[in-house]
Structures are given as C-alpha cells and as structure tokens.
C-alpha cells in the first residue's frame, strides 16, 4: 500500500494544549489529582498502620503454617462446611500459606496505592529501528566481513558447508533409533495368537480367574476375560507378569450372550458359540477399553469419545468417531466344556495404523 493510503499521523498529539481551531486536539496530560493521603497526614498515618497490620498478619500466618506442620496429624480428616470431609493438615497448611502470601501482596499493593507517589510521568519512546546512517554503517561492516571470509567467492566451500550442516542433524535422528524396537507385525497379533484348533487357549474370567462354560454366561450379561494357559505362558496371563500391561492392552475380551435369533450378522454368529460372542474390549478409535453395555439394544459404548458398537451386528459402528468394527474372536468349547479360542482375532485389535491391512 502506498503511504498516502495510511491514516495521517496525529500531528497535534504531542502533549501541547489544543489549537483553538481543533476541538479534538490533545489537551496534554491532565493535572495530578491529589489523594487524601497526600494532604492529610492522619489519613497517611492510618494507611501506614493498615499496611503494617497486613505484614504482621502475614507473619502470624507463617507461624501458624509451621505450627500446623508440626502439630497436625497427616491422617486427620475434619468436616468443614461447605467443603465436606477434608484433610485437616492440607487445609490448615493451605490456608495459612495463602494468608501469609496474600497479606504480603495486599500490603505492598496498598502501600503503593496510598502512600507512594501516583504522579504520572511521560517518558519518551525511541524508534526501534536504527537510523539510516547506522544501518549503512553496519551493512558496510558486514560486507567487509563477508568479503574477508570469501564466503561469496568460494562457492565450493559454501555449498559443501551447507550440505554438511544439513546432513549432520541426521546423526541425532539416527541416535533415536534404539529408543524402541521396530513395530514389525507386533500390532497385528495378540496373546490369542498362539491358539490353534489342536492347542486352544481357555478364556479366563477376569474377576474369578477361572475358566468359563457357556452356561455360566447369562443372556444379556457382560463378562470380561483374558487368555488362559498356553505353551508360552503355562500359568496363563497373570497380573504379576512383566508384560501384563502390554498384554492386557490387546488381549482383553468382552463376552456377551445374545439369543441366537437376535444376532443379525451370520458371520458373527458363526464366530461365537451358542450365542456367546467374544469381542475385543479395546475400542478401535484410539484404544480406550469399552465398558458400557446396554443389554436391551446390544449396544456397547466407549466412554472416551462415545463410539457405539452394535454387538448383535458384528460390532458395527453405529455412532461416534471409531472407523471400523470391534474385532471378534472365534470361540468354541473344549472337551471339558470350557470356552476356548482356537486362533487370533480376525483383524488387528485397537486403533488403526498405517500398516494395518484388511
């Protein structure tokens, strides 16, 4: 934009009294208004006492803080209206510290407002930009310096230097490689992976730590399960296992039982056993565990972002941000009548990732 398009600078605005012909001119700084404490010595003395009182209260509060620290039992719970039952120590420490700090602040501010001068002064501003002479001088010096370095003339040095500097950060990136192992196919498989029709893995009830028979599961109920003994884990998945958190993050199952005629998806019914269906408990959105089940509608809701899956219809997503159905595990029973899995989930469990194929 050319300069003439910019609004004019306020020529009149330099603090001088208005020219008679411009009613909008800057009349300059208004005269200082005196405060009560500026002229009345008694008011000033009162203000002084108030400030000191605040500082004294602060001192008392700090002493109170120390006294609370040494005397109140950390386990003591007291009832304070309207807060309810709170830790006595926490309350006492917080309040005394709060008062101790607040009163210092209040004292200082009150002092500044009542007793320190409140006369406003103008101070000049200086342009941030240097004037032309300095600018020319600096550019000249820089050119001299650059000329002496030969940076512009010796192109080969310049280019190779830029190249080396561009590459050297890669060393830092490469060093990060050992932060973790490569993903490989780990996200595609879960702990149920080891199950085969010949060596199936039992479904173990999360709460009772026992195997489950289909008749243990009532229609409309929701049960959580984890993998039982396998070749690699003869004990089954245990909380004390080193990798328990990692394993349960993928292996957790959600078992429901639906009247077989209510199951809309034939394929899904086939993966189940007499209406018992085993779905991954891990939401396919970003991986929260799903915990809310509505037995009338067979809808399961993820509490994190409310993705809703219809478990009677192959866990199809019927609402919310999840992008695909919950993976289902094929189950059957073993010779003793316990529910078992004979293989891994048909699809990778949990949130989507780039390498996920389907």
């Amino acid at each position, binding site marked *: 934009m050319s300069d003439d398009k910019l609004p004019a600078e306020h020529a009149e605005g330099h603090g001088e009294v208005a020219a008679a012909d411009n009613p909008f001119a800057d009349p300059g700084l208004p005269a200082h208004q005196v405060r009560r404490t500026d002229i009345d010595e008694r008011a000033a003395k009162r203000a002084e006492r108030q400030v000191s009182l605040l500082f004294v209260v602060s001192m008392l509060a700090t002493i109170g803080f120390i006294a609370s620290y040494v005397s109140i039992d950390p386990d003591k719970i007291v009832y304070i209206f309207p807060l309810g039952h709170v830790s006595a120590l*926490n309350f006492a420490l917080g309040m005394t510290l709060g008062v101790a700090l607040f009163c210092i602040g209040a004292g200082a501010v009150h002092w500044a407002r009542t007793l320190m001068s409140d006369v406003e002064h103008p101070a000049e501003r200086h342009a941030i930009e240097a004037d032309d002479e300095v600018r020319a001088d600096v550019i000249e010096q820089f050119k001299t310096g650059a000329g002496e370095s030969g940076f512009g003339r010796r192109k080969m040095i310049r280019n190779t230097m830029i190249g080396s500097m561009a590459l050297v950060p890669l060393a830092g990136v490469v060093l990060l490689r050992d932060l973790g192992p490569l993903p490989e196919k780990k996200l595609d498989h879960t702990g149920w992976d080891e199950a085969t029709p010949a060596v199936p893995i039992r479904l173990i009830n999360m709460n009772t730590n026992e195997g489950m028979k289909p008749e243990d599961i009532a229609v409309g109920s929701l049960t959580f399960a984890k993998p039982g003994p396998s070749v690699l884990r003869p004990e089954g998945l245990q909380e004390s296992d080193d990798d328990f958190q990692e394993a349960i993050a993928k292996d957790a199952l959600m078992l429901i039982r639906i009247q077989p005629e209510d199951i809309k998806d034939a394929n899904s019914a086939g993966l189940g056993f007499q209406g018992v269906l085993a779905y991954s408990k891990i939401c396919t959105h970003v991986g929260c565990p799903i915990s809310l089940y509505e037995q009338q509608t067979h809808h399961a809701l993820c509490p994190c972002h409310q993705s809703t899956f219809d478990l009677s219809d192959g866990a199809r997503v019927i609402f919310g941000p999840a992008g695909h159905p919950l993976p289902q595990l094929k189950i059957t029973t073993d010779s003793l009548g316990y529910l078992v899995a004979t293989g891994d989930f048909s699809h990778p469990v949990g949130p989507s990732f780039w390498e996920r194929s389907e």
Partner: protein
Amino acid sequence: MSSASTSGKQAPPASTRAKPANKAEAAADYLDGRLGIYSLAKANLRKIFPDHWSFMLGEICLYTFIIIILTGVYLTLFFKPSMGEVIYSGSYTPLDGIRVSEAYNSTLNISFEVRGGLLIRQIHHWAAIVFVAAMFVHMMRVFFTGAFRKPREINWVFGFLLLFLGFFDGFLGYSLPDDLLSGTGIRFMEGAILAVPLVGTYISFFLFGGQFPGTDIVPRFFTIHVLLIPGIMLGLLVAHLILVFYHKHTQWAGPGKTEKNVVGMPLMPVYMAKAGGFFFLVFGIIAAMSAIASVNPVWAYGPYRPDQVSTDAQPDWYMGFAEGLIRVMPGWEIRAWGHTLNLGVFIPLMLFPLVLFAIAAYPFIENWITGDKREHHILDRPRNAPVRTGLGAAWISLYLVLLAGGGNDLIATHFHLSLNDITYFVRVGSFVVPVVVFFVTKRWCLGLQRRDKEKVLHGRETGVIKRLPHGEFIEVHAQLPQDKLHTLTAHEQYEPLELPAEVDENGVARKVSLATKTRAAISEGMFGEGSQIPKPTADEHKEITSGHGHH
C-alpha cells in the same frame, strides 16, 4: 625499567570516583566495578510503566510460571518417575495390597505421607491451570487491542509458542502419576500417533520403547516435562520479557499520550511494589484455592490398567478443544493397497495445531493487508477494528463449540440432552457458529462506533428534559470535555487498498497479480464502507456546535 617498579612501595593510584557515603553505596560501587550496574540501572530504575488492569494478565502468567517451577522442584524431590511395580501399602486403605507403579505409589505417598505434599501437588496443578488460562486471556487482550502490531509481532510469536508448549507440558504433567485417568490420556495419544501415515507406528514404538504401554513412557515424559519443555519455555519467557522491556509498554489513547511517549508511573517504587505485591496475591490465592478445592484426586481413580477406564475420562480444560475435535469427527478410514489411513483421527490431529498456528500468523497477515510499516504503541479499542474483533470472537466461539463437543458426555448427563444431538450440533456448529458470531460482533462494533460518533458530535445525554417554546420536548446534551473528545477521535482509520487502474496512462493493460487482488479484496472487507463508521472530523463538530441544527 622504570624507577617506579623498582621502588617497591607505591600508593595505589587515586580513584577518580567520589567517596561512597555509606556501606550500601560502597557495595553498589563494588558491583558496578564488576558488573556495570549503574549504567544498567540508569535507564531502568525509573522506567515508566503505564497502568491498566488488563496489563496484569501477563503478570499472572509470569507469576504462575514461577509458582509452577518452585512447586515442581519440590515435587521432584519425592516423585519416582518409574513404572516398576510395587505393592501399595500406604495409608490410603482402599488401595492396600494393590499392584501399582512406583510413579503412582510415590504420587500417593506425596499426597498422604509427605506433610504438605498434597498441598504442593495441588498448588502445582492449580497454578498450571491458571497459567494456561491466563495465557489465553492475556493473548486475547493483546489480540483485541492490536498490541501485536509492529514492533511487537515477534513477541506475539514468542507468546504463542509459550502457550503451545504450556499445553503440552500440562498434558505431560497430567500423565506422570500413572493413574487411570492419565493412562487413558496416554492411550489417546498413542492412538493419535498411530494415525499418522507412514511413520506413525514407528514413532509410537520408539516413544513407548515398544508396545503400548511398556515401562518407559513415564520416565521419558518426566524428563521432557521437568527439563526439556520448561527449559525452552524459560528461554522464551526471558526473551519475551526482554522484548517487553525493550519495546516499552503499549498504552491507551488519552490526553497527553502519543505514539512517541509512554505515560505512567516509575518502576521504582510504585511498579515494583505493585507488581511484586501482585506476585504474592496470586500465590496466596492459589495456595488458598489448593486448600479448598481438590484437583485430580488420583487415589480415587486408581492405578492405570489398559483394560479399565473411568467413565468420566476428561482431559484438562485446555485440551478440551482437541478432545472436541476428536469426538465429533466422523470415523473416516481409507483402506487401500494394504494400508489404512485413519482420517477420523488424523484430520483432528492436524487441525489442532493448524487452528492455533492461524492465530500465530495473524499479525503478519494483518500487516500484509494494511501495508503499514510504522510502529504502533497506542492500543486500538476493539470496536475500532471491527473485522479483527469479529475474527477474535469467532475464534473464541469455535473454541467454545469444540469444548462443548469435548464435554458432550457431561453436558448430556447434566442437562439431560441426547449425546448424539450434541455431537451433530457440534459438527454443524463448528462451521456455522463462528461465522454468525463474526457478523454479530462486527455489527456490534459498528454500533458502538456510531455511538461514539454521536457522543462526539452531539454530546452526552444529561437526562435533563427541556421544553422548547413551541412545545417540543428535548433532552439536553452536554458537550464532552476536550480530553474526551480527543480520546474518542484519536484512533486511526485505514482506507481500503485500491487496485491500480486496469490500463496505464499509455493504454497498456496492467498486470495485477493475484496476491494484490486478494489483498485489495480483504482490505475492502476490513476497511471498506461496511466495516467502519468514518470518525467525526473537526469541521463536522464545528458545524454542529456553531448553532445550526444544534439543540
């Protein structure tokens, strides 16, 4: 060799400096000889600071940052950033005998065994909440008053980066106790990282040291939370303050205030007392708040288990905007050639920084449109920049709509609304509401401008009703005093950029670049007829006050 060096005994050369009057002056002299403090203090001891309540917002940010660092150091003395497992056996009986991580164990320990530990934890968390909130409001103050204009654009960017880093450090801190809620937040982060095409899975494995959740994430987050990000923030903060000092404060228009001066009270003593006192006020209030209201009671949530979740899983409010984006986005996924592109997560993940970066870039965009190369130290009243004010309001409304999306479950249960309806509303609302808010705000600003003009030309309503000889009732208007007149007319008004004529003086068609055309169009939108009320001129004022048509 000179005779002086051989003679051995010589009085030291007399100092040219005057004798110090007392011990304090002597100490100052000592330091000056080493650090040059007199020259430093000369310019700064009585440096002028203008006074306005809104200038305190930045101070709150600074003070809460200091409080966070102080309490954070205390917490590191007790916190064990490890995911090694222990059996809990502390004084909180409901969790007795439960297998928990050392991080969670030590957090409970700080809360129940360390005297005052709970208080410091609460102060740390409360201060963080206030810190981010204050940065938001401070940034709004700077935005709506145009304080980001030259020479302060770079400082705007520094401030923006502080906000951005503040978000992340808050999120990381929230994740450290390894409780059920924080674990859920980390799970969310893992899902978001996995949604990144090509490299997402690798980043996730490197970040977690393998599969989610592994045992590395808490110690790694700890280092980033207490060292890396605060270090960068400290550097940015110092740079931010140096620039504030160097640029000097902005001020509102008013009598005696110009672009070339700064009117206010000196650093010593008034500003020192007020600002220093204000630190204690802020600290005191946060301490009292921490005694009264408990945030993040991690013992109530329990330790993190990937197969468990607490139903009220909510992030801290400043992440609510990201949470809203992720909740209302439809679950789009593209599967092709053996790969999955998770747009339902990836798009929100990209939008989050993009919306923020648009704010960071605003000063440069506005400057490009106005083409104004001058320094600005006098603040704009928001009404006098209707388009900017409208944009700011639209941004806030978008934030609030998305926040509502992020809390859709809470809104649904508290107001008995359908969760699905809220989500559909937010989906549409994120596009519609900001536009509506923009136009409403702009019109409102114009209305206020008109009122200012009215006041300047016709004076202020006195409430006194007068009956004229011919029976008409009128209200007496009192002329504004000159300082008011000046204040109300001191703002600048840009003229919209005009495109050069299609053909030049020789009749040859001129090429106008697309950028110039865009710029002219935006400039028309910002400063054209519909976007500002021409401010009254001195002549108009004289015309009216000199009798004709004046009551």
